[in-house]
C-alpha cells in the first residue's frame, strides 16, 4: 500500500456500507480510527509501509454496525462517501465519518488479503 509521490494510487478495494446506529443523541459507527497526515506514521501497527499516513481502522466494537457490515481491524479507509481519506488530517477524517445529517456511510477500504485474493484468482488461469 505504499505510494509513489505524483503517481495515482492503485489499490484493490472493497465497498462497505455501514448504517449508523442511533444511541441517545449520537450516531455511532462502532469502530475507531487512527492515523492522518498530522500523526506519527511510525506507530501504526497495521500499515505495511511505516511512512503511510492514511486512516486505519484500529478497533471494532463487536456487534456494532461496522462489524455487521464486514469492516475488519487493520483496514485502510480510502474513501468515505466519495471523499478521499488518504491525505487528510485525523480530525478531518473524524468529521467526515460523523456528519450528523448522514445515516449511511459508504467506505472503500483496502487490506492486504484483498490483494492476495486477486492475485490468486488471476494466477489460477494461465493466460493464453
Amino acid at each position: 500500500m505504499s505510494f509513489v509521490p505524483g503517481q495515482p494510487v492503485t489499490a484493490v478495494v472493497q465497498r462497505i456500507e455501514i448504517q449508523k446506529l442511533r444511541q441517545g443523541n449520537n450516531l455511532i459507527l462502532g469502530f475507531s480510527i487512527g492515523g492522518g497526515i498530522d500523526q506519527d506514521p511510525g506507530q501504526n501497527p497495521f500499515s505495511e509501509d511505516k511512512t503511510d499516513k492514511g486512516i486505519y481502522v484500529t478497533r471494532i466494537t463487536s456487534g456494532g454496525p461496522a462489524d455487521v457490515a464486514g469492516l475488519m481491524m487493520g483496514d485502510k479507509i480510502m474513501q468515505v462517501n466519495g471523499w478521499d481519506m488518504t491525505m487528510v488530517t485525523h480530525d478531518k477524517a473524524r468529521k467526515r465519518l460523523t456528519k450528523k445529517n448522514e445515516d449511511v456511510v459508504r467506505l472503500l477500504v483496502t487490506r492486504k488479503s484483498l490483494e492476495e485474493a486477486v492475485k490468486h484468482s488471476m494466477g489460477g488461469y494461465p493466460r493464453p
Partner: protein
Amino acid sequence: MDNESTYSGYSYKSSHSRSSRKHRERRDRHRSKSRDGTIRGDKSVIIQAPGEPLLDAESTRGDDRDDNWGETTTVVTGTSVDSISNEDLTRISKDLEDSSPLECRRYLSPALGAILGLISLITPLAFLALPQLLWRETLDPCGTPCEGLYISLAFKLLILLISTWALFLRPPRAALPRFFVFRCLLLALVFLFVASYWLFYGVRVLEPRETDYRGIVGYAASLVDALLFIQYLALVLLEVRHLQPAFCLKVVRTTDGISRFYNVGHLSIQRAAVWVLDQYYSDFPVYNPALLNLPKSILTKKMSAFKVYNLGDENNTNNSTGQSRAMIAAAARRRDNSHNEYYYEEAEVERRVRKRKARLVVAVEEAFTHIKRYQDENAATSSPKHPREVMDPREAAQAIFAPMARAMQKYLRATRQQSYHTMESIINHLQFCITHNMTPKAFLERYLIVGPTLQYLDNSKGRQWTLVSEEPVTASLRQGQVFCLRRLDFSLVVTVTPLPFLRLGEEFIDPKSHKFVMKLQSETSV
C-alpha cells in the same frame, strides 16, 4: 675516520662564535642576516646556528647514519641582489682557515643596527646641545615654552628607549639565509630620516648660527616624533602584520609521514620556515629511525625466490631491464603472502610491548612504595626507637632505581627508545619526580608516551636546517608553494594553501519561537 678530518676547520670556527656570542647578545639589536656557512664539497649554502657539531643528538646514533650528507645537500634558491655567485663560494671555501670574512659578515647587520639606533637616539640631544655649546651668548632666551618642550622630549625619548629595548634588543632565534626585507627597509628608513635631519640642521642651523632656540627645540621634538612613528611602523611590519592568519601550512615529515597543519599570516618563505621549525620542535614526536622499516625478512622474501640465468652474450643493459621486468612480473603473479606475515609480526610486537609495559608499570609502582617523604615532626618520636637514614633526592633515586632498572631497560628496548634514555638521564628524571612528589604514573609518562623533539634536545647547541625552495626565499607565501626544510637524515615538506574566504550570514531566532509538540497517534472512535 675521514669524518673528523673534514670537520676540523668547522670546529675551529665554532669556538670563535661561542666566545663572541656574549658580546653580540648585549648590543644585539637585530637578528643576523645572510651569511654563508662552511662549505662541504662546494655545493651547498646552509642555514647555520652558532656552535653546533654536525652530528648531534637529534640524528640517529645507530648504524644507518648517512655519512655522505655533504654530497647530497643542495639548495636551489632564486637569485637576489645579495646572492653570492658560485665563484665566490669556491673562493670562500678555499680560505677555510681564514674565517674572518665570514665573521665580519655575520656581525655586520647587528652592528649596523646598533650604531644606527644609537645615533638616532643621541641626535635630538645633540640638536639641543650644540647651539648651547657653540654660540650660547647669541641665543634668544626661551622660557616656559622651551621647558614644556624639554619635558615632552624627555618623556618621548624615554618611551623610545623602553620600546626599543622591548622590541629589538632580543637575542636572535634564527639565522636566515637571506636579508630580512622589512628590517632592511626600516634600517634604510631610519638612516634616511636621520641623515636628512642632520643635513637640514647642518645647513640651516649650524652654518648661519640660528638664534631662534625655540625653533631648534621644536625641530628636535619633531625628530623624536618621527622616530616614534618609525618605531610604530616597525612594530606593525615586524610583529603585527603576520598575526592575522591567511595561509594554512601542511608540514609532513618525509620519513614517517607524521603531518600537522598550522595557520600563519603573511610571511616570507624564510620567516615561515623559522616559524614552522619552532612549532616542529614542540609538536612533532621525535624522529626515531629504528621504528621505520618493515622487517627485512618480509621485504626480501619476494625477490629471493627466482634465480635468473644469463644465456648468451647480448647487450648487458637490455638484458638487465628484461631480467628485472621478468622477475617483477613473476613475483606479481605469485600469491603474495607478505602482508600476512607483516600482520602477524605487528601483532606479535604489540603483544610483547604490552607485556613489558605491564611489567614496567608494576615494577615502578612497587619501587615507589619503598620511599616516602621525611617529616620533621616525626623526628623526635621515631629517632630514639629506630633511626632512619635520611637521604637527599639523588640518593633516594639511586636507591629505588635498582629494582626497576631491568624492567625499564627491557621496555625501552622493545619500543626502540633505548638510544634516547641513558641510565644517567633516567636517574635524573627519577630524582626530579621524587623531589616534586610525583606519582609513578607521572614518572612513567616520559617513557610511555613519545614526546616532542624538544624533550630530547639539549639546548647548548644550535640546530642546522637547510631551506630548499624553488622561489626566492624572501618572496611572500602564495597558494600552491612547496618548500622543504632539510636536515641530515630527514626533511619536512611544507605545502601552502590559502585559508578560504568566509561568508558569514546572519539568522535571527526569536527566543520565544522554540516550541514543541508531542508526536501523536490518537485514536478516535466514531
